[in-house]
């Protein structure tokens, strides 16, 4: 029997969830015995080369590129998992959600204290650049999400337990230590 295939991505996230995935330490050797990785920063495969079983999504959507990637994942993965606070709720990037996007751009490129030199008052508008969304969206407000793994970042053990449960079909182990956050 062929191994289940896993894809991962980081949208509007900080890669912390991926770091947490790496925190499974030596179990990563066990993991690659159990699954095959496809599109993912872990193996640097940039585009889907085959249909996958599980997609892990870190981060919410703050621009059109994120939306595009998320939709690709939905198309190519049987099961999508929102991994961590930003994918589930928008997280830190969603702090801008109470502020109109125009004001955010103005602060970032024209008036903010970190703007050293922009005498031409240039705002990034090249067609190659992703378009900024009016607010940061959690993933389930764009596509259907099957499972949610909470945490900032979710603990390595939670990610591990969830992957094992998905791969083996066994019930997910959720001991208190794995889901307590303080």
């Amino acid at each position: 029997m062929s191994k289940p295939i896993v894809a991962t991505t980081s949208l509007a996230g900080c890669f912390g969830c991926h770091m947490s995935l790496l925190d499974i330490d030596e179990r990563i050797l066990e993991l690659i015995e159990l699954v095959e990785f496809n599109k993912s920063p872990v193996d640097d495969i940039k585009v889907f080369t085959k249909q996958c079983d599980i997609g892990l999504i870190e981060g919410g959507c703050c621009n059109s590129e994120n939306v595009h990637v998320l939709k690709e994942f939905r198309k190519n993965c049987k099961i999508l998992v929102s991994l961590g606070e930003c994918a589930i709720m928008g997280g830190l990037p969603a702090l801008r959600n109470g502020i109109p996007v125009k004001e955010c751009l103005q602060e970032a490129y024209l008036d903010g204290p970190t703007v050293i030199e922009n005498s031409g008052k240039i705002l990034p508008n090249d067609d190659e650049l992703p378009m900024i969304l009016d607010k940061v969206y959690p993933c389930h407000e764009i596509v259907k999400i099957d499972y949610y793994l909470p945490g900032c970042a979710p603990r390595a053990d939670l990610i591990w337990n969830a992957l094992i449960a998905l791969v083996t079909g066994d019930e997910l182990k959720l001991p208190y230590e794995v889901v307590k956050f303080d």
Partner: protein
Amino acid sequence: MRNAVQNILKKFGNDRGRLMDILKGVQSELGFVNEEAKKLIAEGLDMSYVDVEQTLSFYHFFTDSSRGKYTVYLNNSAVAEMMGRSDVAAAFEREAGCKFGSVTEDGLIGLYDTSCIGMNDQEPAAIINGKVFTNLTSYDVKDLVAAMRSGKVVSDLITKYGDGKNSDGLIKAMVANNIRKSGDVLLTSHKAGEGMVKALDMEPAEVVDIVKASYLRGRGGAGFPTGLKWDFCRKSNGEVNFVLCNCDEGEPGTFKERILLTEYPELVFEGMIIAGYAIEAQEGILYLREEYEYMLAYLEAVLKGMRENNLLGENILGKGFNYDIRIQLGAGAYVCGEESALIESCEGKRGEPRNRPPFPVQKGYMQQPSVVNNAETLASVVKILKNGADWYTMRGSRESTGTKLLSVSGDCKYPGVYEIEWGIRVRDILDMAGADDVQAVQVGGPSGECIGPKEFKRTICFEDLPTGGSIIIIGNKRNLIKDVVLNFIDFFIEESCGSCAPCRTLPPIMKNRLEKILNGHGVMQDVKDLEQWGAKMKMANRCGLGQTAANPILSTIRNFREKYEELIRKDVDFDSGFDLAAAVADSCEYVGRKPNL
């Protein structure tokens, strides 16, 4: 300013417990309670600035900045919308030249939304500088704004007074009573003192026994047995007991207390006296919602008259009973109709419901045993004492004795107050009100139940359809979900005190989901989610507001499921409703690029 604030503080004995009255006083004087005033109040009451701030910011009618020389609060209840509120609002914005939620540049006119003001039978209605204006049209608005611009006093803008005591010199309101049906318990002639004379001749415990024998249940909606409540209070070990009369009828569509207080204030006060005697209290507080402030001077005069006739004060009617009543004005908060929130408000705090136990009968006002009764409950007590428990139990149904005041509004010919016996069929109410093209009836206001024609045979009583009295009739021409359910959810979002997280956060999320369904992006899962979240609201909130805030959605899904099913997509299981073009439109416009979708 210092002097003005200090005079007000002095008037209320620098008592923190009277912070509501102090804020009201300062606001009447200055038009607002700004930072300087807040500091002076905090200093004068020896409390922290933020404690003053948190009470001030909690209430809709308190403000820390000017809301204009003329402040218009236009009711935005569902029935107001049905009766043409949006035209009136548009006229106000056009004529005044500012949007709702703001003040004109010259500071003359402020326009604000407000939750139901108890005038559902004569909408659209607004409160302008404390005066009520009913049956407004866009023509009226033109005249009103012109009069404001010419500097007229608001009371001079009222040209015609309503019937009954509405035209009394101390009320002078254009409000109509709209009493459509009088029974022989409440809306009938009453000679002041008739009930209390009998009560004062008995032992307090006997009075409680009679109320118990009448099976009278609370008229605010929850229906707790009144005699039992009094008994619990008597058995609590406190230093002093209090009676609180709840006249904070904020449930959209109810206005029966308006009628009771306008036409039968002595009856309500007398009920408070009897309750006070029964639980051996010395002080009663009538909590009057700010929306009814226009009656305040009149009610104070009635109290004065009762004191002069020795129905209140020292040694009442020579029976050795000392008791007096004060009126506590609210400041715009639906949740203050919840008894423990009402108590908090009477103590000058934010109107946040308390954790229970202890119940108010154990630790209520000032941490002393307190009875909180609805005005209608107390008014009924008077007649029970006068005519006896047997006389009373002859009326109504088995578990709901006596009569009930229904506030009927919406799509009908005869909106107004009806005194009926418990056990009346919904269909009979509709006949009386002249409603023939009915899609749905909202029984008990937004927190109650929305029923369709199949259930019009059901009866109004605690055994079947309980209600605090609000009956809103929704005609066939209305879009039930858009015009009614959405409005009700907005109401709960606005009125949540924010203390319990589910009540603070879920209604906005549920509203988004409802809008998604209305926009054609709904799927079956959305309906399931709404049902599931609604069930959580019942479990996870502290007070009745939070527990019932999902009822408009839950009861329409239950009774009008087909209306939801008509709106949702059947071709897919999932539709997020996300629109990329709309989401990038603003940023693309700002940076000057063409969206590349």
